[in-house]
C-alpha cells in the first residue's frame, strides 16, 4: 500500500513493556500510528503480538511505558481513550444469550450511539449478516460469529481499530469484503493496527510494518525501508515480506540463542 501523508497520530506508544512473573513478554516497544494509516504487526508465535494488542486496547495493564489514543493517556483517562478504539480478537467473544441485534443494541448503549439502528443495518448488510438479526451465537457458524464481532467493533465508528487475525474463519468473499472495509475505513481516517500471520495480507493492506520477536521490536517501517535495513546488514535488497520476515526472525532467534 502506498505511504500516506503527514497526519495526526491516533495511537502513540512509548517504551511499552509487560512482565508476567519472570517472563518479559513485551519489552520497550515504541511506535505511533497516524490517522488513515494501517500498521501491520507481525512476528513468530509467542512473539508478544497479542499481549501488545491487549495492552493497547486497555484490556491488560502494561508494566512499563505509556499508551495514548487520540492524545488521551490510556492509564490516566481510560474511558475517553477506549471510547475511540475497537479491539477485535482472533476468537470472537460473544454473549451466548444475546441475539445478533441485541449485541449491537448493547454496544450502542455502551458507546452512546443514537442512530444505531441505521448503522447496524448498514454494517449487517456489508458483512452479509442481514436476516440473522434474531439468531443466537450458538446458531451462527464460526465465520458468522467473527462477522458479528467485527460488526460490534465497527458500530461506534472507532478512530483506532486493532485486529488480531481478523480473517480467521471468513470465507473468500468475506475476506475480500473485510479487506475492502478496512481500506475504506483507513481512507476515512481511521488508524488500524493489524496483527496477522498472513503475510501477503499484511503486505497488501499495510502502510508500515512492525516486526516483533521475543517481545522486542526487530524492525519498523515500510517494506522498502525494512529491506534497506537488511541490505545494510549485508542481505539482498529484494524479496517479499515473507522473505524479509524469515530473514529477520531467523537472525533474531540466532542472536537470542547466542
Amino acid at each position, binding site marked *: 500500500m502506498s505511504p500516506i501523508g503527514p497526519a495526526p497520530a491516533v495511537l502513540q506508544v512509548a517504551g511499552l513493556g509487560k512482565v*508476567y512473573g519472570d517472563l518479559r513478554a513485551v519489552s520497550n516497544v515504541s511506535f505511533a500510528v497516524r490517522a488513515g494509516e494501517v500498521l501491520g504487526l507481525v512476528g513468530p508465535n509467542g512473539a508478544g503480538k497479542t*499481549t501488545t494488542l*491487549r495492552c493497547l*486496547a*486497555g*484490556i*491488560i*495493564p502494561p508494566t512499563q511505558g505509556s499508551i495514548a489514543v487520540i492524545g488521551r493517556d490510556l492509564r490516566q483517562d*481510560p*474511558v*475517553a481513550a*477506549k*471510547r475511540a*478504539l475497537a*479491539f477485535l*480478537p482472533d476468537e470472537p*467473544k*460473544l*454473549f*451466548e*444469550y*444475546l*441475539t445478533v441485534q*441485541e449485541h449491537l*443494541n*448493547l454496544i*450502542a*448503549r*455502551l*458507546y*452512546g*450511539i*443514537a*442512530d*444505531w*439502528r441505521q448503522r447496524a443495518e448498514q454494517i449487517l448488510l456489508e458483512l452479509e449478516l442481514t436476516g440473522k438479526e*434474531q439468531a*443466537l451465537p*450458538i*446458531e451462527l457458524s464460526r465465520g458468522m460469529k467473527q462477522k458479528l464481532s467485527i460488526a460490534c467493533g465497527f458500530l461506534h465508528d472507532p478512530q483506532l481499530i486493532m485486529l488480531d487475525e481478523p480473517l480467521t474463519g471468513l470465507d473468500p468473499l468475506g475476506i475480500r469484503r473485510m479487506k475492502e472495509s478496512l481500506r475504506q475505513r483507513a481512507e476515512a481516517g481511521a488508524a488500524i493496527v493489524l496483527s496477522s500471520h498472513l503475510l501477503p495480507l499484511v503486505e497488501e493492506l499495510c502502510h508500515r510494518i512492525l516486526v516483533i520477536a521475543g517481545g522486542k521490536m526487530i524492525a519498523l517501517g515500510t517494506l522498502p525501508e525494512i529491506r534497506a535495513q537488511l541490505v545494510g546488514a549485508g542481505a539482498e535488497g529484494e524479496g517479499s515480506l515473507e522473505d524479509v520476515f524469515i530473514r529477520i526472525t531467523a537472525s533474531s532467534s540466532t542472536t537470542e540463542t547466542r
Partner: protein
Amino acid sequence: MTLKPLEITGFLFLNGLKNRVRRQLQRMRQPKHFFAMVAGLSYLWWIFFRRAQLSGPPSRLPAKALPLVEAALVAFAIIGIGGTWLFGSAKATLSFTEPEVQFLFPAPMTRAMLLQYRLSKLFLGTLGTALISSLFFGRFLTAHALFFILGSWIALFTITLHSAGATLTRASLIENGRFGLKRRWGTMAVALAVIGLLATWVVRVRQPAPPIADWSVANVSLWVTWVMAQRPLSWILWPIRCSIQLALAQDWGAFLRALPGGLAVAGLHYAWVISSHASFEEAAVEAAERRARLVDAWRSGQRGALTRRLGRRKRTPFALAGTGRPEVALLWKNLVAMFRGESHRALLVTLVLGAGIAAILLKQRVELLFSLGCLLMAFFVTLLGPDILRQDLRQDLSHMEILRSLPLSGRRVVLAELLAPGLALSGVEALLIIGSLAFSLDKPIPGLSPPACLAIALGLVLLLPALTFLNLLLRNAAVLLFPSWMAVDPHQTRGFEVMGQRLLTLAANLMLMLVAVLPAGIAGGLLFLVLWGSAGALAAVLASGLAAAVLLVELYFGLVVLGKLFDRFDVSV
C-alpha cells in the same frame, strides 16, 4: 506395528493422571491453592474416609433383609435396561471427546479397536463409580467392602455394556430398515409383552404375598426369595442376579460362587457390543461437537442457552435506547441472561413451593405461620439468593476481555454488574415482606401490635436490599481477588481443591458479612435503644434506616475498592 486399544487407554489415563498430579502440585506452591486443597481433603476425610474401611465388623444390615436389597437392585437394573431399550437414543452414541475424534478416528485403527478403546475407558470409569458407591453403601451391605467394590464394578460395567449394546442394536435395526419408523413401537410391544407375561405369571403364582398385617422384614424377604426362585422367572433374572449377588456377597465362598456367572454375563455382553456392525462414528462426532458446545456455553455462563429450544425467543425486559447511562446496558444484558437462563427458575420454584405451603397453611387458618414463613423466606433470599442469581461478574468472568475494553470506569462496571441480581432479589424480598405484613395485620404476631408489625416490615424493606447488595459485593470481590477459583467450565473443576475453595469461600463470605454487618448493627441498635421510649414503633424504622445507610456507605467504599481492582485486573493471569 499395530495399535492396541488397551495401551492407548493406559497411556492416556496414566499420563493424564501424572500430568494432573504434577500440575496440582505446581499449583499448590501458591498458598491459596495449597490451603484450598488442604480444606478439601480435610472435608473429604471427615465426611467419608474417616468412616470407610475395607474390612471390619459384620454388616449392619440384618441378613434377612438382604433378599429385599437384592430384589430392589434387580428392579432398578430392570428399569434401567428397559429405559435404555424403550427411550434410548435413536442413534448409536458412544461418547468420544473432541481430541479423541480428532486423533483416534483417522488413526490406523479398526472400528472394533475404537470400540475396545471406548469400552476400556468405560471399564475404568465404572471402577470409579464402584469405589464411590462403596464409600456410601459398601459397609452397610457387606461384611467385606472389597467384595462390594469388585462386585459392583463388574455389575456396573455389565449394565454399561448392555446400554451400549442396546444403543448399537437399535442403530443397526434403523440402518438395516427392518423396523423403519415403527422401530420404537416394535421395541415397546416386545417389552410390554415380556412385562405382561411376567405380570400374569406373578399373579398366578401359587403362593400369594403375605397379608399386609404380616409384613415383617422376615416374611416379605421369604416371599421375595420364593418368587425369585420360581422358574421361568429365575431364568430371566439370572443374568442380572448373578452380577448383583457378586456385590452383595457376604463371604469368600458366596463371592467365588457368583464370580463365574458374573464374569460370563459381562464377557457375553462385551462380545455382543464388539461384534455389532452398527456405525457409531457419525453420531460420536456429533456428540463430541455437542459436548464442545456445552463446554463453550459453560464458559460463557449459559448452560441454559443450550437446553433452550433453538428459535425460541423471549422479549427483553425493556427496550434499550442507544443513548443514556451506559451502566444500564450491562443491567439490561444481565436481566436478559437471567430470564433466558435457568437460574431464575430455581428461585421461582422455591417461591412457588413457598406459595403452595402458604396456601395449605391459610386453608388451615394459620396466618401466623404464613406470615413468619414469608419473613423466613425473605431472610433466605437475602443470604442465599446471590448463590442462585449469578448474573454479575461471576457469570461474566469469561467475558472479562470485553468488559475491560469498554469505555467505562471500573467502579461503574462493578456497580452495573451488581444491579441485575441485586434489584431482582430486592424485589422478591419486598414482595415477601409485604406478604408477611398483609397477614400479620389481620392476625398480629403475638406480642406485636399492627403498628409494630408495619414498622418492622418497613425497616426490613430498607435493610434487606442493602444487605443483599453487600452480599453480592463480597461474592463479586472474590471474582476479582481469586479469579482462578471461579469455575467457568466443567473441565476446569479440580476435585478436592475446588471443594476446598468453595468451603473456604463460603466461610470467608460469612465472616466478612458478619464483620460488615457489625457497624450497621451497632449503629441501628443504639439508635433503637435511644428512640424506643419516645418514638415507639417508629424507632424500628429509623434504626433500620440508619443501619441501611451504614451498609450503603460500606457498599460505596466497597465499590470504590472493587472498581480499582477491576481497573488493575489482568485478564491474562
